[in-house]
């Protein structure tokens, strides 16, 4: 009976219901688009910001050529190394003071309890001394700063002073898969060599590294048998934003005029720092890692604020629209609704009937709006952030909650009118 009545309303007031659905769909689509973009692209950019703790990587020149040629990162091809000794040169360059941290990062494939994992050897809080032309350079550097975003979920950060070289940090995902806890001892095998490593901590990085196992550089070198060599150095440097000169220089420094060259060399551009690193370590190739600058982060924040505002406004508009449509719908039907009351329906029952109709309409509208909004999100994602937007369950959930709230709030005026509807006044009209 109830649904027969609901159906009757749809049959009779389909135009109004369609308009409500369209209003809801519009509101929902904008909310969906904005939320999906905010949640997804925001995450992506934040992830990138986090991931690139270093902004320069230094790799052996030969490998740079190979990976440029084939555009691949292939561990098997890598045969050339940089001597560990040479890393000290980083402290001697003109912009040495702008280099805040650096560390060798040697990754290798190893077997952990029969599964293949990536084993990374690096410095944690390494004390480095380097003598050159009678000067002693020294520095404490390593992953402790270069991975400042790591969240130690268990145990502690590896400490080279305190722990032996045969200690390890395990990524949270790997730890979960292999049921590794801090304090455990794990057996790692690489190129026929085996080592027992004590796990001192579990970390969460939020990226692929969650599947890695980190150990000291010495330990990795012994396991992989590469001696005192480095496969890669991560460098974090304070740089000046690129301008025209930097762009020109990045193409080919030798094309600069003398004055330009001096200006470029003495400005902390990423490209000039890389250039100087290559000067100091000729067998290395230094290149800038694409990094989202702070200013871009701020723009992101502002964009998110703007998107939030658009969402709020569109939902506000939808609420007003729904409120109008529902009220006029109830007004049109006042006779019918009064009759239901005269026949014995309570206020609650009539409200339930009207709300059910509106909710069904809203749900249909919201579903349509969600997919529309998702398509819209792709357009925004591609054109503004050049990144596809993933469908977010969170966004769907928020949209559902928002639309229900919008529909309910929008129905309040109509429901109040409905409550006040007196059958005696409506039905006996024309006293």
């Amino acid at each position, binding site marked *: 009976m109830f649904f027969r009545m609901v159906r009757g309303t749809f049959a009779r007031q389909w135009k109004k219901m369609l308009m409500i659905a369209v209003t809801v769909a519009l509101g929902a689509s904008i909310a969906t688009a904005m939320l999906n973009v905010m949640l997804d692209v925001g995450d992506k950019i934040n992830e990138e910001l986090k991931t690139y703790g270093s902004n320069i990587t230094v790799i052996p020149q030969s490998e740079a050529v190979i990976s440029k040629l084939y555009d691949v990162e292939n561990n098997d091809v890598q045969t050339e190394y940089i001597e560990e000794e040479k890393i000290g040169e980083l402290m001697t360059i003109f912009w040495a003071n702008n280099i805040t941290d650096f560390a060798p990062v040697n990754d290798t494939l190893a077997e952990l309890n029969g599964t293949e994992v990536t084993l990374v050897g690096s410095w944690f809080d390494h004390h480095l001394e380097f003598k050159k032309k009678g000067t002693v350079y020294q520095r404490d550097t390593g992953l402790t700063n270069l991975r400042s975003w790591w969240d130690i979920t268990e145990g502690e950060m590896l400490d080279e002073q305190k722990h032996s070289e045969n200690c390890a940090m395990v990524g949270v995902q790997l730890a979960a898969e292999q049921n590794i806890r801090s304090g455990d001892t794990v057996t790692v095998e690489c190129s026929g060599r085996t080592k027992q490593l004590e796990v001192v901590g579990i970390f969460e990085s939020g990226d692929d590294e969650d599947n890695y196992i980190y150990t000291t550089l010495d330990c990795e070198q012994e396991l992989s048998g590469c001696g005192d060599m480095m496969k890669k150095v991560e460098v974090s440097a304070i740089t000046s934003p690129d301008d025209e000169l930097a762009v020109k220089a990045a193409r080919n420094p030798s094309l600069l005029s003398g004055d330009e060259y001096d200006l470029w060399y003495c400005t902390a551009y990423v490209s000039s720092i890389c250039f100087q690193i290559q000067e100091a370590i000729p067998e290395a190739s230094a290149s800038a890692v694409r990094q989202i600058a702070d200013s871009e982060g701020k723009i992101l924040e502002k964009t998110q604020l703007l998107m939030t505002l658009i969402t709020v406004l569109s939902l506000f508009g939808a609420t007003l629209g729904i409120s109008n449509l529902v009220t006029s719908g109830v007004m049109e039907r006042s006779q019918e609704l009064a*009759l239901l009351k005269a026949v014995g329906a*309570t206020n609650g029952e009539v409200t339930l009937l009207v709300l059910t109709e509106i909710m069904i309409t809203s749900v249909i509208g919201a579903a349509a709006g969600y997919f529309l909004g998702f398509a819209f999100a792709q357009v925004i994602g591609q054109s503004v952030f050049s990144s596809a937007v993933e469908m977010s369950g969170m966004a769907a959930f928020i949209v559902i909650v928002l639309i229900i709230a919008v529909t309910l709030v929008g129905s309040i005026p109509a429901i109040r009118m409905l409550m006040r509807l007196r059958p005696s006044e409506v039905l006996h009209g024309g006293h």
Partner: protein
Amino acid sequence: MSKLLELKNISKIYGELHALDNVSLTVDKGEWIAIMGPSGSGKSTMMNIIGCMDKATSGQVIFDGKDISKESRRKLTEFHRDKIGLVFQQFHLINYLNAVENVMVAQYYHSMPDEKEALEALERVGLKDRAKHLPSQLSGGEQQRVCIARAIINSPELILADEPTGNLDEANENIVLDIFHQLHREGTSLVVVTHDDEVGLEAQRIVRLEHGKITSDKKNDNFHE
């Protein structure tokens, strides 16, 4: 005979206007009363108060020994759907539901819709073969009979009818009056508002209202079952 309904000093005041002015009236169980009077005399106002669709400004309404004038709106609604069947002057039906469904709406809000019972009610008003017709496909008289079927479906103790024959021709008027006689014989109380002397004279008792006051209250000597 025991009292079904008692109005005690009921007044309904709209601003300056006393639509009902200190009216007292008793309806016994099984009694059939006609309420007559000129337009604007307060007949519909009185019906609304009896039918729990409106509240009096002052005075008491006692139904089955219970004072209902102080009850909440929700209680009044429950009360009215259990005890009272309403028939209006205009044939108020839900126009997208067919005849039997219109009757079932009253069942739905009372207890449970039961198509068989609803069809029986339509049969009583002689409309079984029109059960699947929409109101727009029924004549005025037929629509009013659907309203009566809806009013009696939950076996009310009291039928309140406001100008039930006002818009009907003579033939249909007679059909409706026959149904009222039948209900009366079954023991249902009836309060029927009418302008029409002929309709009024079918009742056991005739109450006249003028300017919100009862001016006469007489037994109808010509009443016949």
